[in-house]
Protein backbone atom coordinates (compact mmCIF):
# COMPACT_ATOMS: atom_id res chain seq x y z
CA UNK A 1 0.00 0.00 0.00
CA UNK A 2 1.49 3.30 -1.09
CA UNK A 3 0.17 5.17 1.92
CA UNK A 4 2.41 3.35 4.36
CA UNK A 5 5.49 3.36 2.15
CA UNK A 6 7.13 6.50 3.56
CA UNK A 7 7.64 4.97 6.98
CA UNK A 8 9.07 1.76 5.58
CA UNK A 9 11.18 3.51 2.98
CA UNK A 10 13.12 5.31 5.70
CA UNK A 11 14.10 2.07 7.30
CA UNK A 12 16.84 -0.09 6.00
CA UNK A 13 16.55 -3.81 6.46
CA UNK A 14 18.75 -3.85 9.55
CA UNK A 15 16.81 -1.18 11.39
CA UNK A 16 13.57 -2.80 10.41
CA UNK A 17 14.80 -6.13 11.74
CA UNK A 18 15.89 -4.54 15.02
CA UNK A 19 12.46 -2.96 15.36
CA UNK A 20 10.71 -6.26 14.67
CA UNK A 21 12.63 -8.12 17.34
CA UNK A 22 12.59 -5.15 19.71
CA UNK A 23 8.86 -4.61 19.39
CA UNK A 24 8.19 -8.33 19.89
CA UNK A 25 10.09 -8.19 23.18
CA UNK A 26 8.57 -4.89 24.27
CA UNK A 27 4.97 -5.84 23.56
CA UNK A 28 5.22 -9.31 25.07
CA UNK A 29 7.01 -7.86 28.10
CA UNK A 30 4.26 -5.26 28.53
CA UNK A 31 1.57 -7.95 28.17
CA UNK A 32 3.14 -10.11 30.87
CA UNK A 33 3.67 -7.15 33.16
CA UNK A 34 -0.10 -6.58 33.08
CA UNK A 35 -0.30 -9.72 35.20
CA UNK A 36 1.99 -8.34 37.89
CA UNK A 37 -0.07 -8.52 41.06
CA UNK A 38 -2.73 -10.62 39.31
CA UNK A 39 -1.00 -13.98 38.94
CA UNK A 40 -2.99 -17.02 40.02
CA UNK A 41 -0.62 -17.56 42.94
CA UNK A 42 2.27 -15.60 44.38
CA UNK A 43 4.96 -17.88 42.92
CA UNK A 44 3.54 -17.63 39.40
CA UNK A 45 3.12 -13.89 39.78
CA UNK A 46 6.84 -13.55 40.49
CA UNK A 47 7.67 -15.99 37.74
CA UNK A 48 5.69 -14.06 35.09
CA UNK A 49 7.11 -10.74 36.26
CA UNK A 50 10.60 -12.19 35.81
CA UNK A 51 9.77 -13.18 32.25
CA UNK A 52 8.42 -9.69 31.61
CA UNK A 53 11.58 -8.09 32.94
CA UNK A 54 13.79 -10.26 30.73
CA UNK A 55 11.77 -9.18 27.70
CA UNK A 56 11.77 -5.49 28.57
CA UNK A 57 15.54 -5.76 29.01
CA UNK A 58 15.84 -7.29 25.54
CA UNK A 59 13.63 -4.55 24.11
CA UNK A 60 15.82 -1.89 25.72
CA UNK A 61 18.90 -3.26 23.95
CA UNK A 62 17.22 -3.77 20.58
CA UNK A 63 15.33 -0.49 20.44
CA UNK A 64 18.36 1.37 21.74
CA UNK A 65 20.34 -0.02 18.81
CA UNK A 66 17.49 0.62 16.36
CA UNK A 67 17.36 4.26 17.40
CA UNK A 68 21.11 4.77 17.62
CA UNK A 69 21.60 5.95 14.07
CA UNK A 70 19.05 8.70 14.22
CA UNK A 71 20.04 9.49 17.77
CA UNK A 72 16.64 8.47 19.03
CA UNK A 73 16.78 6.68 22.35
CA UNK A 74 15.04 3.37 22.82
CA UNK A 75 12.50 5.12 25.04
CA UNK A 76 11.56 7.47 22.24
CA UNK A 77 10.81 4.49 20.00
CA UNK A 78 8.92 2.66 22.72
CA UNK A 79 6.79 5.52 23.98
CA UNK A 80 6.39 7.95 21.11
CA UNK A 81 5.59 5.76 18.12
CA UNK A 82 2.06 5.19 16.92
CA UNK A 83 0.53 1.79 16.51
CA UNK A 84 1.06 1.69 12.74
CA UNK A 85 4.81 2.03 13.26
CA UNK A 86 5.08 -1.00 15.51
CA UNK A 87 6.63 -4.04 13.85
CA UNK A 88 5.90 -6.78 16.35
CA UNK A 89 4.25 -10.00 15.28
CA UNK A 90 0.54 -10.32 16.06
CA UNK A 91 1.04 -13.26 18.41
CA UNK A 92 2.71 -11.21 21.14
CA UNK A 93 0.02 -8.52 21.26
CA UNK A 94 -2.79 -11.00 21.91
CA UNK A 95 -4.50 -10.58 25.28
CA UNK A 96 -3.43 -12.61 28.28
CA UNK A 97 -6.82 -14.27 28.61
CA UNK A 98 -6.56 -16.87 31.33
CA UNK A 99 -3.30 -18.39 32.55
CA UNK A 100 -3.51 -21.14 29.94
CA UNK A 101 -3.78 -18.66 27.08
CA UNK A 102 -0.84 -16.69 28.50
CA UNK A 103 1.19 -19.91 28.58
CA UNK A 104 0.10 -20.94 25.07
CA UNK A 105 1.22 -17.58 23.68
CA UNK A 106 4.51 -17.82 25.54
CA UNK A 107 5.19 -21.36 24.37
CA UNK A 108 4.49 -20.54 20.73
CA UNK A 109 6.51 -17.33 20.74
CA UNK A 110 9.52 -18.26 22.85
CA UNK A 111 10.02 -21.63 21.15
CA UNK A 112 10.34 -19.67 17.92
CA UNK A 113 12.43 -16.95 19.55
CA UNK A 114 14.81 -19.50 21.04
CA UNK A 115 15.42 -21.18 17.69
CA UNK A 116 15.93 -17.77 16.11
CA UNK A 117 18.41 -16.60 18.75
CA UNK A 118 20.44 -19.79 18.44
CA UNK A 119 20.93 -18.98 14.76
CA UNK A 120 21.29 -15.25 15.28
CA UNK A 121 24.54 -15.97 17.10
CA UNK A 122 26.00 -16.61 13.63
CA UNK A 123 24.73 -13.32 12.23
CA UNK A 124 27.05 -11.06 10.25
CA UNK A 125 26.00 -8.23 12.55
CA UNK A 126 28.14 -7.86 15.65
CA UNK A 127 25.48 -6.23 17.80
CA UNK A 128 22.99 -8.98 17.02
CA UNK A 129 25.55 -11.68 17.75
CA UNK A 130 26.22 -10.22 21.17
CA UNK A 131 22.55 -9.64 21.82
CA UNK A 132 21.66 -13.20 20.84
CA UNK A 133 24.41 -14.60 22.98
CA UNK A 134 22.97 -12.87 26.04
CA UNK A 135 19.27 -13.35 25.33
CA UNK A 136 19.41 -16.99 24.26
CA UNK A 137 19.94 -18.14 27.85
CA UNK A 138 17.01 -16.11 29.11
CA UNK A 139 14.75 -17.39 26.40
CA UNK A 140 15.83 -21.00 26.91
CA UNK A 141 14.35 -20.65 30.38
CA UNK A 142 11.15 -19.05 29.05
CA UNK A 143 10.67 -21.83 26.56
CA UNK A 144 11.25 -24.57 29.10
CA UNK A 145 8.94 -22.98 31.67
CA UNK A 146 6.16 -22.52 29.12
CA UNK A 147 6.57 -26.14 27.98
CA UNK A 148 6.39 -27.40 31.56
CA UNK A 149 3.21 -25.48 32.26
CA UNK A 150 1.68 -26.59 28.96
CA UNK A 151 2.32 -30.19 29.89
CA UNK A 152 0.92 -29.79 33.41
CA UNK A 153 -2.20 -27.97 32.30
CA UNK A 154 -2.80 -30.30 29.34
CA UNK A 155 -2.20 -33.39 31.41
CA UNK A 156 -3.95 -31.96 34.47
CA UNK A 157 -7.65 -31.77 35.23
CA UNK A 158 -10.47 -31.74 32.70
CA UNK A 159 -10.82 -28.00 33.13
CA UNK A 160 -7.11 -27.22 32.81
CA UNK A 161 -6.88 -29.37 29.67
CA UNK A 162 -9.88 -27.62 28.14
CA UNK A 163 -8.46 -24.19 28.91
CA UNK A 164 -5.02 -25.12 27.55
CA UNK A 165 -6.58 -26.42 24.33
CA UNK A 166 -8.61 -23.22 24.00
CA UNK A 167 -5.55 -21.07 24.64
CA UNK A 168 -3.62 -22.89 21.93
CA UNK A 169 -6.55 -22.68 19.58
CA UNK A 170 -6.72 -18.90 20.06
CA UNK A 171 -3.02 -18.33 19.43
CA UNK A 172 -2.36 -20.94 16.72
CA UNK A 173 -3.50 -18.77 13.80
CA UNK A 174 -0.67 -16.33 14.53
CA UNK A 175 2.10 -18.92 14.07
CA UNK A 176 2.45 -18.68 10.25
CA UNK A 177 3.40 -15.02 10.56
CA UNK A 178 6.52 -16.06 12.49
CA UNK A 179 7.79 -17.83 9.38
CA UNK A 180 6.76 -15.25 6.82
CA UNK A 181 9.60 -13.77 4.78
CA UNK A 182 8.70 -10.44 3.20
CA UNK A 183 10.88 -8.13 1.19
CA UNK A 184 12.48 -6.42 4.17
CA UNK A 185 13.32 -9.65 5.96
CA UNK A 186 14.51 -11.16 2.70
CA UNK A 187 16.98 -8.33 2.36
CA UNK A 188 18.20 -8.84 5.95
CA UNK A 189 18.63 -12.56 5.25
CA UNK A 190 20.57 -11.78 2.05
CA UNK A 191 22.93 -9.56 4.01
CA UNK A 192 23.52 -12.31 6.54
CA UNK A 193 21.98 -10.21 9.31
CA UNK A 194 18.95 -12.41 9.95
CA UNK A 195 18.50 -16.17 9.84
CA UNK A 196 15.79 -17.42 7.49
CA UNK A 197 12.95 -18.56 9.79
CA UNK A 198 11.76 -21.02 7.16
CA UNK A 199 14.94 -23.01 7.80
CA UNK A 200 13.61 -24.01 11.22
CA UNK A 201 9.87 -24.18 10.65
CA UNK A 202 9.86 -27.99 10.48
CA UNK A 203 11.94 -28.21 13.64
CA UNK A 204 9.61 -25.73 15.34
CA UNK A 205 6.52 -27.67 14.43
CA UNK A 206 8.01 -30.93 15.62
CA UNK A 207 9.17 -29.44 18.93
CA UNK A 208 5.70 -27.99 19.56
CA UNK A 209 4.13 -31.32 18.56
CA UNK A 210 6.37 -33.08 21.06
CA UNK A 211 5.31 -30.77 23.90
CA UNK A 212 1.65 -31.16 22.98
CA UNK A 213 2.02 -34.95 22.82
CA UNK A 214 3.46 -34.94 26.34
CA UNK A 215 0.61 -32.67 27.38
CA UNK A 216 -1.83 -35.14 25.80
CA UNK A 217 -3.21 -32.32 23.70
CA UNK A 218 -4.08 -32.44 20.02
CA UNK A 219 -2.26 -30.12 17.64
CA UNK A 220 -4.76 -27.35 16.85
CA UNK A 221 -6.17 -27.50 13.36
CA UNK A 222 -4.71 -24.93 11.00
CA UNK A 223 -6.82 -21.84 10.60
CA UNK A 224 -6.64 -19.00 8.16
CA UNK A 225 -3.30 -17.40 9.01
CA UNK A 226 -3.40 -13.79 10.13
CA UNK A 227 -0.48 -11.70 8.94
CA UNK A 228 0.52 -8.07 8.84
CA UNK A 229 2.10 -7.14 12.17
CA UNK A 230 5.57 -6.82 10.64
CA UNK A 231 4.20 -4.12 8.36
CA UNK A 232 2.24 -2.29 11.03
CA UNK A 233 -1.17 -3.88 10.44
CA UNK A 234 -2.15 -4.90 13.93
CA UNK A 235 -5.11 -6.45 15.67
CA UNK A 236 -7.25 -4.12 17.77
CA UNK A 237 -5.49 -5.26 20.94
CA UNK A 238 -2.20 -3.45 20.34
CA UNK A 239 -3.70 0.04 20.43
CA UNK A 240 -5.14 -0.59 23.89
CA UNK A 241 -1.83 -1.96 25.13
CA UNK A 242 0.07 1.06 23.81
CA UNK A 243 -2.45 3.49 25.28
CA UNK A 244 -1.70 2.19 28.75
CA UNK A 245 2.03 1.88 28.14
CA UNK A 246 2.54 5.26 26.45
CA UNK A 247 0.08 7.40 28.38
CA UNK A 248 2.46 8.77 30.97
CA UNK A 249 5.42 9.88 28.82
CA UNK A 250 3.09 11.21 26.16
CA UNK A 251 0.97 13.22 28.55
CA UNK A 252 3.75 14.50 30.73
CA UNK A 253 6.48 15.06 28.18
CA UNK A 254 9.95 14.46 29.45
CA UNK A 255 9.18 12.90 32.81
CA UNK A 256 11.89 10.74 34.28
CA UNK A 257 12.40 8.62 37.35
Amino acid at each position, binding site marked *: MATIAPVDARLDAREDYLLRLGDDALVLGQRLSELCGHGPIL*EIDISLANLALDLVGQATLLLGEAGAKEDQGGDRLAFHRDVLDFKNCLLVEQPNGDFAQTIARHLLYTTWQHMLLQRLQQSSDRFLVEFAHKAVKEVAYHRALAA*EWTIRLGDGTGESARRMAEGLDWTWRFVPELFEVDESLHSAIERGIAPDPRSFEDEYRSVIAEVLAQAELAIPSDQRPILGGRRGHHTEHLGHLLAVMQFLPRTHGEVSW
Partner: protein
Amino acid sequence: MSSEGVSSGGVSSDWPLWEVFVRARGGLSHRHVGSVHAPDGELALRHARDTYTRRMEGVSLWVVPSAAIVASDPDEAGALFEPAESKIYRHPTFYDIPDEVKHI
Protein backbone atom coordinates in the same frame (compact mmCIF):
# COMPACT_ATOMS: atom_id res chain seq x y z
CA MET B 1 -7.67 -6.87 31.23
CA SER B 2 -9.64 -10.02 30.86
CA SER B 3 -8.57 -12.09 33.79
CA GLU B 4 -10.92 -15.00 33.87
CA GLY B 5 -9.23 -17.57 36.01
CA VAL B 6 -6.08 -15.53 36.41
CA SER B 7 -6.85 -13.49 39.48
CA SER B 8 -9.18 -15.91 41.21
CA GLY B 9 -8.66 -16.86 44.81
CA GLY B 10 -5.39 -18.72 44.62
CA VAL B 11 -4.57 -22.37 44.68
CA SER B 12 -1.54 -22.28 46.95
CA SER B 13 -3.36 -24.26 49.56
CA ASP B 14 -3.83 -27.13 47.11
CA TRP B 15 -0.14 -27.31 46.40
CA PRO B 16 2.44 -28.79 48.72
CA LEU B 17 5.07 -26.61 50.31
CA TRP B 18 8.74 -27.03 49.40
CA GLU B 19 11.73 -25.86 51.41
CA VAL B 20 14.34 -24.09 49.31
CA PHE B 21 18.10 -24.34 49.78
CA VAL B 22 20.59 -22.19 47.86
CA ARG B 23 24.29 -22.70 47.38
CA ALA B 24 25.68 -19.19 47.11
CA ARG B 25 29.04 -20.18 45.61
CA GLY B 26 30.99 -23.28 44.82
CA GLY B 27 32.55 -24.60 47.99
CA LEU B 28 29.78 -23.40 50.30
CA SER B 29 27.01 -25.61 51.55
CA HIS B 30 23.37 -25.13 50.60
CA ARG B 31 21.54 -22.88 53.02
CA HIS B 32 17.87 -22.76 53.77
CA VAL B 33 16.39 -19.54 52.38
CA GLY B 34 12.62 -20.03 52.50
CA SER B 35 9.83 -21.98 50.90
CA VAL B 36 7.59 -22.05 47.83
CA HIS B 37 4.33 -23.68 46.84
CA ALA B 38 4.43 -25.87 43.73
CA PRO B 39 2.57 -28.87 42.35
CA ASP B 40 5.77 -30.90 41.91
CA GLY B 41 9.53 -30.81 42.34
CA GLU B 42 10.39 -29.54 38.88
CA LEU B 43 8.11 -26.54 39.18
CA ALA B 44 9.23 -26.02 42.78
CA LEU B 45 12.75 -25.57 41.36
CA ARG B 46 11.46 -23.05 38.83
CA HIS B 47 9.58 -21.14 41.50
CA ALA B 48 12.61 -21.24 43.78
CA ARG B 49 14.79 -19.92 40.97
CA ASP B 50 12.39 -17.07 40.26
CA THR B 51 11.81 -16.21 43.90
CA TYR B 52 15.21 -16.66 45.54
CA THR B 53 17.94 -16.35 42.91
CA ARG B 54 16.85 -13.27 40.96
CA ARG B 55 19.82 -11.26 42.14
CA MET B 56 22.52 -13.83 41.54
CA GLU B 57 22.21 -15.28 45.02
CA GLY B 58 23.12 -18.77 43.98
CA VAL B 59 24.75 -21.33 41.74
CA SER B 60 22.74 -24.35 42.85
CA LEU B 61 19.28 -25.02 44.25
CA TRP B 62 17.71 -27.80 46.23
CA VAL B 63 14.03 -28.15 46.96
CA VAL B 64 12.72 -30.59 49.52
CA PRO B 65 9.08 -31.36 50.32
CA SER B 66 8.41 -29.61 53.62
CA ALA B 67 6.48 -32.68 54.71
CA ALA B 68 9.67 -34.74 54.40
CA ILE B 69 11.42 -32.73 57.09
CA VAL B 70 11.35 -34.26 60.54
CA ALA B 71 11.62 -31.45 63.06
CA SER B 72 12.52 -31.55 66.71
CA ASP B 73 9.75 -30.84 69.17
CA PRO B 74 10.04 -27.35 70.70
CA ASP B 75 8.76 -28.77 73.98
CA GLU B 76 11.80 -31.00 74.08
CA ALA B 77 14.23 -28.15 73.50
CA GLY B 78 15.32 -28.19 77.10
CA ALA B 79 16.21 -31.83 77.13
CA LEU B 80 17.77 -31.70 73.70
CA PHE B 81 19.88 -28.56 73.81
CA GLU B 82 20.38 -27.23 77.27
CA PRO B 83 22.79 -29.94 78.43
CA ALA B 84 25.31 -28.57 75.92
CA GLU B 85 25.29 -25.13 77.55
CA SER B 86 27.60 -26.12 80.38
CA LYS B 87 30.12 -27.85 78.14
CA ILE B 88 32.12 -24.98 76.77
CA TYR B 89 35.10 -27.28 76.22
CA ARG B 90 33.24 -28.57 73.17
CA HIS B 91 33.72 -25.19 71.48
CA PRO B 92 36.85 -24.91 69.35
CA THR B 93 38.00 -21.81 71.23
CA PHE B 94 41.21 -23.20 72.61
CA TYR B 95 43.28 -22.87 69.48
CA ASP B 96 43.76 -20.12 66.85
CA ILE B 97 42.08 -20.23 63.48
CA PRO B 98 44.16 -18.68 60.68
CA ASP B 99 42.59 -15.53 59.22
CA GLU B 100 42.60 -17.08 55.72
CA VAL B 101 40.15 -19.76 56.76
CA LYS B 102 36.70 -18.47 55.97
CA HIS B 103 33.27 -19.91 56.61
CA ILE B 104 34.06 -21.84 59.76
